[in-house]
């Protein structure tokens, strides 16, 4: 089977048994969900953090390009560079790299390889690479290519968080349907003293084809520093899980839906909405609820993600809609 190439290429050992994320997220993610759902953050105080400025978009791109070239994934000099209000872009015939924010956000595409993606090289759904097969290569890639921009502070670790798959689908208009999985992405998050960072910030995704070639990566990985208020590091007392659920209930009451059809366990931790959202009032404790609703006839499904702050005092943050709603 095609998946063998991946197994051989990365010396992975797991048996491929089926789709990953929704049913079986990585162990750390499952542990966070289990703990959060029963206890939120345990009403423990959390040090409030702030995102530190990165090295700048161009400097980050230069660092990444040097490592990408060493890994054979880009060739310096092939690129055209440009800037717009939000991004520094390196555009080459066979690859693209862009950086945003202050250099903590990056997106790389291996165009030479993604152009070659074809359903005939994929594996049937159910035979996708597993977390175990993807995590090692993902970590190796972070170590070898991303280490100049992915820094870890004291008591910080990188934890596997998600696995997603890309499927090619096609059909003759007179009938027939084909599908095959051609690529998979392993996602990582940061843990600070074991507390996961939820939200788009502190995320790394590395995408591989079924042969183990790197197709691309994306990172949103700022360095954090304690938020200092009135000369003191701000540690925020957090509320218990009952209060968290009351806050979520208030937010949910503002959505009008006919019926609730599914609900994932709560996920609590530090909330970093990410570079693309823009400045925030700090990276602080929050719980996130994913729930699926449906119209009365069941024909339309509508999923919601509500993220509520869990500090005793509800933070005033104009970039955080749920915080604004809870303050009303």
């Amino acid at each position, binding site marked *: 089977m095609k998946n063998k190439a991946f197994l051989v290429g990365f010396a992975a050992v797991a048996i491929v048994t089926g789709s990953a994320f929704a049913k079986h997220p990585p162990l750390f993610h499952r542990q966070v969900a289990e703990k959060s759902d029963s206890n939120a953050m345990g009403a423990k105080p959390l040090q409030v953090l702030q995102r530190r400025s990165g090295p700048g978009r161009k400097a980050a791109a230069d660092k990444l390009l040097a490592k990408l070239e060493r890994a054979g994934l880009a060739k310096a000099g092939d690129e055209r560079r440009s800037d*717009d209000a939000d991004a520094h872009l390196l555009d080459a015939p066979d690859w693209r790299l862009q950086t945003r924010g202050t250099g903590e956000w990056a997106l790389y595409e291996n165009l030479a390889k993604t152009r070659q993606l074809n359903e005939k090289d994929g594996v049937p759904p159910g035979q996708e690479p597993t977390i175990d097969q993807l995590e090692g290569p993902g970590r190796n890639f972070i170590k070898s290519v991303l280490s100049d921009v992915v820094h870890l502070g004291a008591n910080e670790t990188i934890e596997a968080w998600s696995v997603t798959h890309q*499927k090619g689908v096609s059909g003759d208009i007179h009938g027939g*349907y084909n599908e095959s999985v051609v690529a998979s992405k392993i996602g990582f998050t940061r843990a600070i003293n074991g507390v996961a960072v939820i939200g788009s910030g502190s995320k790394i995704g590395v995408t591989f084809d079924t042969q183990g070639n790197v197709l691309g990566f994306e990172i949103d990985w700022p360095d954090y520093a304690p938020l200092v208020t009135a000369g003191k590091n701000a540690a925020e007392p957090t509320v218990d899980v009952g209060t968290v659920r009351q806050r979520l209930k208030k937010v949910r009451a503002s959505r009008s839906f006919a019926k609730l059809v599914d609900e994932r366990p709560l996920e609590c931790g530090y909330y970093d909405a990410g570079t693309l959202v823009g400045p925030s009032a700090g990276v602080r404790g929050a719980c996130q609820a994913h729930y699926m609703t449906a119209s009365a006839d069941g024909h*339309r499904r509508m999923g919601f993600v509500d993220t509520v702050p869990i500090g005793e005092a509800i933070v005033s943050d104009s970039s955080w809609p749920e915080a604004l709603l809870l303050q009303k």
Partner: protein
Amino acid sequence: VLGCLTGAAAACGGINDGAGPQANEDVGQVEQAAYARNFGMHCTGSYQNDWLPAQTDGVQTCNNFGNKLSASATQKFYYNLKSKQYYWHDTGDQAVNSLEDVDLFFSDTHGGAWTGTYAEYAMWDDQTLATTNNMRLGDEGRGLSIFSVLSCHTLQSNDGAFWGRWGKALSGGLRATLGSHGDVWIGLNAPAGTQFASLLNQGSTIKSAWVSAFGSTSAANDLAVAFTGKTLADCQSRRDNMTWNNFMNYPRLRDGAIGYWCGWEWDDV
């Protein structure tokens, strides 16, 4: 034109039944560099009588998308979803400031694909849906090229019914349709509106721009794109190489010229 989002279509001064420009029929020969692109949007934050849940990030997603794409194209219209079914369907899609009057159409609304004969999109009006079996896009006026609507399930294919749902809508020569084959989560998509437009402006392929943008949230959206081709290889080439800068270089395929459809689907991205 934000005031239009809460007002009636007529108050926005735009939509009527006038004909659009009859240009670019031989689109395969058009040099994209000389082509002035445009786009339009229909967006809503809520629905009449709360017949469906509020699209809490819907308007902001569109605001962000429109603001950013305006760097490369003219925003021809930006209206709400009130009384718009007529303009999504073949009945009125050719009207000035309607779907066939722009190259790219963007919206963000609830959707479904519970039958094998059509996918549906929720309008603002109570119990009103636009359905793909009543659409034929790309064959009138300027001719729509890219139909990008962030909605649940509308591009579902694993039941083998994709062409049954989309055959009519795609047979008018529409070049690309973007959406989801599964669930889209409401609440975190607004920054992705900026990112989608930014990536289109930068020359990313349409498929990469869609998944990189709406897959950049922490919500784990299911995302999909679909194209047509004379052959499977032609379809795959369009799917994997078409950009906002070159889409006009791909001749429209209509009716019997279409042999295949193809797409990518990303789960929980």
